């Protein structure tokens, strides 16, 4: 399938804005690279605290991405494949965490799961304290990342259409089978990019976390929080850690790159 792929070119001029866009994104990264103190780089990114923060970030982001997939895929399916009154409003509401400045999102979470929040009394009675724990980090990350998965997956579901689902149903597949064996595999590229978005957003999450979860080493101090703190005491280390975050992200995203379709 190498030389034989179907060949339809893209317009030549399209490379110009694409290049401009790439430059806009890559130049700042280059700017950052230009400030890295390479002699100390390895030392800076391998301190105990750095490793702790990185580990915490990876673990919480993985959990919240999983949560996003578990909750977001059904949400996207319901939004794309059913219609009910008020669906439009619900869609807009679900997207809100995207537009809310993360700090505000954190406040909202605090108002809900905090001691004095909506569910504070109930949670207290259960002996659960959510805020300022690792659970809070995951919750904050899930809250801000979920809409990204939902939106991109809903788009993919709509673009894919329902033709194959119809065929599968007429072959006797129950909705669950259709979902599992037809819908999901067909929108896999969309799901992968949605999950990548969610993971990336979780990995970079800062505002909601610091507000809702606080910044405690090993428990709630994720990499972005650690970088933020380092910025005050050791700007070089902050740049180095940012670079580390970038490298981690490149690896993760590169690993989960969208597959090819027909």
């Amino acid at each position: 399938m190498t030389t034989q792929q179907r060949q339809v070119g893209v317009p030549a001029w399209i490379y110009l804005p694409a290049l401009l866009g790439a430059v806009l994104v890559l130049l700042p990264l280059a700017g950052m690279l230009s400030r890295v103190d390479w002699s100390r780089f390895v030392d800076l990114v391998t301190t105990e605290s750095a490793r702790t923060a990185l580990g915490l970030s990876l673990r919480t982001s993985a959990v919240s991405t999983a949560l996003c997939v578990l909750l977001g895929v059904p949400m996207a399916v319901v939004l794309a494949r059913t219609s009910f009154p008020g669906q439009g409003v619900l869609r807009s509401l679900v997207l809100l965490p995207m537009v809310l400045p993360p700090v505000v999102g954190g406040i909202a979470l605090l108002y809900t799961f905090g001691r004095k929040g909506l569910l504070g009394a109930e949670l207290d009675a259960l002996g659960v304290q959510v805020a300022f724990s690792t659970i809070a980090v995951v919750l904050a990350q899930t809250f801000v990342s979920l809409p990204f998965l939902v939106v991109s997956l809903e788009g993919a579901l709509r673009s894919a259409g329902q033709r194959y689902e119809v065929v599968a149903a007429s072959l006797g597949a129950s909705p669950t089978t259709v979902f599992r064996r037809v819908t999901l595999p067909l929108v896999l590229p969309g799901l992968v990019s949605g999950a990548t978005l969610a993971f990336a957003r979780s990995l970079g999450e800062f505002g909601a976390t610091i507000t809702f979860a606080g910044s405690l080493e090993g428990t709630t101090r994720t990499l972005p929080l650690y970088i933020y703190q380092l910025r005050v005491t050791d700007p070089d280390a902050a740049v180095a850690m940012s670079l580390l975050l970038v490298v981690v992200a490149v690896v993760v995203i590169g690993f989960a790159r969208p597959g090819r379709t027909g």
Partner: protein
Amino acid sequence: GGDDESTASDDGSGITTLTVYAAASLTATFEQIAEDFEAEHDGVEVELSFGGSSDLVTQITEGAEADVFASAATKNMDDLVAADLTGAEPQDFATNVLEIAVPPGNPAGVKSLQDLTGDLNLVLCAPEVPCGAAAQKVAEAAGVTFSPVSEEQAVTDVLAKVASGEADAGLVYVTDVAAAGDDVEGIEFPESADVVNTYPIAPVADSDEADLAQEFVDFVLGATGQSVLQDAGFGQP
């Protein structure tokens, strides 16, 4: 069990955890102090959480299990007192005054507060945050009006812009200039003495480790704590 780890209690392994919430400007000093404190107290581990003073107050009010709170401004400590969440009377442990921060080499040739009114990129803290309020008071006292290109939300943002050379000058605390090392130069000015910022500290109410919390407060107020703070440029209250 993430929620267990943040509580200040003996977790069974013989180690007692003390959680200290401190203003962001105390990051470097409190890390040092915590180390010294741990060295003097076997089996004690000090967990530090830094943030804007008002954020920290919000967090404690919403149930964060802190044992000690060190604020960068009296107002935030007052809020905590008003919420009935202090375990003992707050005590002032440090003071701080403003200084002009300029990029290395001082490209705009700033020498005094009056130079800041000229045609240069001046960044200040927003009047709503303590350093901004202080800057405003200094300006009033000196009878000048500033026209900043940006009113930042935090000292660190001012510092970052000066350090990067983006701003020609900014008004920050002496300790911030000291902490930034070679990235910025500090220029003292006489009017700064009119506006002194005080840092109060207090144990938090309902702490599981009330005694240890009080010990930490005393440690900060004691010789070791004070010498660390003064090395960083803080004044004595």
